[in-house]
């Protein structure tokens, strides 16, 4: 059962054209159909919640609780959690960030409700209403969330700003440009792999370097020849290993759709050629 649904992503585009949300989002509060307030930003693909007393995006539910139009004690937090879980399943990898946001919201609600339900210990009587604390935190977060959205709109390098570069002339410098010991390179790679290992938890296999080198050599040759006879790629003096390496390199390039293998007639010579650029 999946009673959550992601809002149509194309609403994002519509939103751009019409900054106000107009009638795009609707919610039902205590059986009454309600349009969303203008000052509430509901992201595309918002998590929609379906409860007895409320149906609509979670963003709006939180908004109502903030404004005390809805009592947190009336809210079935367990149901929200359940719907959140199925929502995550719906979201593809791209939206995981958004899903994380809703986890935060759901957690707030759960925490808030549990605190409201528990009898308050005597010595904490002057403690603030947990709702006020929640509101303060949400508001502070809201400010920076909006600030982040504004920063995201500033023109930036490689998106709206493109730095102009011309090719360097030939030149020689007295001073050595940089000094990189070879080990640094390996250490750097070991480091990046270790991190990749930690974050992805899967092995990244590195093919034999000689195969990689051969792939580069073949690609380079194709820049000038574009049509190479298959057999000319093999150098007898490289021996069996050389043949295997070259063959593996060809298979890799084929797999990556970087080359094609063609034969104009049966038993005719085999050629490899680059993939035609599609215009």
């Amino acid at each position, binding site marked *: 059962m999946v009673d959550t649904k992601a809002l149509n992503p194309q609403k994002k585009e519509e939103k751009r054209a019409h900054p106000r949300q107009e009638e795009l989002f609707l919610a039902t*509060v205590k059986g*009454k159909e*309600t*349009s969303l*307030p*203008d*000052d509430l930003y509901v992201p595309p693909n918002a998590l929609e919640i379906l409860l007895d007393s409320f149906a609509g995006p979670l963003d709006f539910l939180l908004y*109502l609780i*903030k*404004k*005390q*139009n809805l009592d947190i004690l009336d809210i079935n937090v367990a149901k929200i959690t359940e719907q959140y879980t199925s929502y995550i399943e719906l979201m593809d990898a791209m939206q995981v*960030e*958004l899903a*994380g*946001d809703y986890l*935060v919201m759901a*957690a*707030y609600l759960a925490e808030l409700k549990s605190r409201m339900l528990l009898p308050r210990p005597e010595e904490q009587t002057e403690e603030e209403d947990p709702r006020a604390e929640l*509101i*303060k*935190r949400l*508001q*502070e*977060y*809201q*400010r*920076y*969330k*909006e*600030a*982040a*959205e*504004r*920063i*995201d*709109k*500033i*023109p*930036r*390098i*490689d*998106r*709206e*700003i*493109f*730095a*102009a*570069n*011309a090719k*360097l002339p030939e030149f020689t410098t007295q001073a050595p440009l940089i000094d990189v010991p070879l080990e640094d390179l390996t250490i750097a790679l070991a480091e990046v792999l270790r*991190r990749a290992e930690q*974050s992805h938890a899967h092995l990244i296999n590195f093919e034999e370097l000689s195969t990689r080198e051969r792939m580069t050599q073949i690609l380079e040759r194709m820049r000038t020849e574009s049509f190479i006879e298959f057999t000319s790629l093999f150098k007898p003096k490289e021996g069996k290993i050389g043949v295997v390496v070259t063959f593996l390199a060809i298979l890799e390039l084929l797999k990556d759709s970087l080359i094609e293998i063609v034969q104009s007639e049966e038993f005719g010579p085999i050629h490899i050629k680059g993939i035609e650029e599609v215009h």
Partner: protein
Amino acid sequence: MERKLSEILEALLLTASRPISIDDIVRVFEDPKPSKDEIRKALNQIDQDCLTRGIELKKIASGYRLQVKQSLSQYIAKLWEEKPQKFSKATLETLSLIAYKQPITRGEIEAIRGVAVGTQLIRGLMERGWVKIVGQRDVPGRPSLYSTTKEFLDYFGLQHLRELPELPSLPDLTSIEHELPIDEPDESISSSKSLN
């Protein structure tokens, strides 16, 4: 000479792969070095010439940069083979917290965002050169204090932090106390609007 100087400056700007400052420029010359004023004049000359060109001279935090006029960036995007990088919400929010509240510790960022900030995320920001450690807060654990860098401003084409978009103001806390009708515009918002 004037003409010649602007040619040299153009060549420098187009090959530095980074913004260059007037000091950078001065250092390139043997004696007699051009004065800073002469350099500024030549930069103005370039700026003028750019009116009929595809590029423009932009002054940003760490110096000057020649960049494609923004009205033409649509064409560049077509030729550009890599999709522009999108930043995750987590990255943008962390970056904006550091930008607006610097210097700030990771704990303070986490307190506002309500979720943990991954080491990977901060490391990524530091590696891009947008964020740096500027000190330690004098509390137990001595957590690092983060600030944004000139490169951060360069990346967004800004000269100063104050050019960042204004931080949204906090809604009035007292107005939340009283119940508001759902389907009518929120009073607190309309009153805060009148402040702007």
